[in-house]
């Protein structure tokens, strides 16, 4: 019904023409504001080798409001909860309309490289990450293998 804002068209075109390494974002066929996203687990992180599915939705007043992003693939990470919700400041109060789909997804990928257990969303995960990091990393690798590989 609504015409797609030019900015969304432009971002979508650029995502297709100049994709970000390790990230793919493809708009849904029936809703150009809904993107199917795949982020590869960063090297040297417990998520390496995993392919993580996310969904990203651009609200009506995007880019004045942040995109809504959620992990679909289960992930063991102190800043991502069981429902896949992500604790990341730029998705909330630090959002700026100068950020883009591309920069948001890069930030999420960076969050996988640098878990921040001091600002947790998944409390049990964050707790373990703080008291026994090696076990937490083992869990994260195990979840990556179990949920984020060969699919």
């Amino acid at each position, binding site marked *: 019904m609504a015409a797609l804002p*030019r*900015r969304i068209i432009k971002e979508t075109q*650029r995502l297709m023409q100049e994709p970000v390494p390790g990230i793919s974002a493809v708009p849904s066929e029936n809703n150009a504001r809904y993107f199917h996203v795949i982020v590869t687990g960063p090297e040297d992180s417990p998520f390496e080798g995993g392919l993580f599915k996310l969904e990203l939705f651009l609200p*009506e007043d995007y880019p004045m409001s942040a995109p809504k992003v959620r992990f679909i693939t289960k992930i063991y990470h102190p800043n991502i909860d069981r429902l896949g919700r992500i604790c990341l400041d730029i998705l909330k109060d630090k959002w700026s*309309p100068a950020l883009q789909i591309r920069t948001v997804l890069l930030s999420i990928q960076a969050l996988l490289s640098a878990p921040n257990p001091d600002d947790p969303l998944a409390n049990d995960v964050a707790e373990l990450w703080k008291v026994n990091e090696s076990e937490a990393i083992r869990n994260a690798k195990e979840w990556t293998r179990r949920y984020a590989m060969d699919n």
Partner: protein
Amino acid sequence: MEKENAEPDCAICLQKLHHPTQLPCGHVFCFLCVKGIAIQSKKCAMCRTHIPRDYFDHPILLEKQPLDEVDEDCDNNKHQWYYEGRNGWWKYEERSNADLEAAFTSGVSECLLLLAGTIYCVDFQNMVQIRRSDPTKLRRVKRDIPTFPSKGIAGIKRLDPQQETGQTGQDVRDENTNSLQEGNETDVINVSEESLVEVDNSSIESLSDGIRNITLQHNNAVDGSHVSSPNENDEPSSEDT
């Protein structure tokens, strides 16, 4: 990527800057994009510096006279869309105008616009613009020749003093209203059309069509020479004339 030496795009709409407007921190965006962030986050999109509440009392426009009648000679073939403000009509900004015109000529009954971060529905049957989140906020709209006397473009007040007389507060029901109705500058605030004007609070009011004084700057110079009165009827200050 596209044009290497071209002006940078606006970081908010990702398009060529339309009516480039500079914030106190120095960052430049389209006028309507600045309006959007001034309403929503109240911070610069680049550096997050707070945007002063009264910024739109004196927005810094980096463009010379933005309100031109660029191509007067081919008027007859072109149409301009207007929305009603206090005491007159504003032109829609170029991009919204193109969207409206395209929608209208394609025969659909309405057109959604995202203006300064807010969604509006323009209903072609009733010729009104309705704010989606609050349908009581509505304004009349019309399609007319580009030279119809207007207050300016999308909240950027016309600077041409001859055109700036301000229409009276009379009910402008007649679409053929023309400049003959102008000339009475008094008491423009107290009019029945007030209810059509979208104003929810003082900060938005200062952003809406009550934009009183526009400081026009060619490139960099910073404000300082302007003393402007908050009076509704004041002419915008201009260094051009």
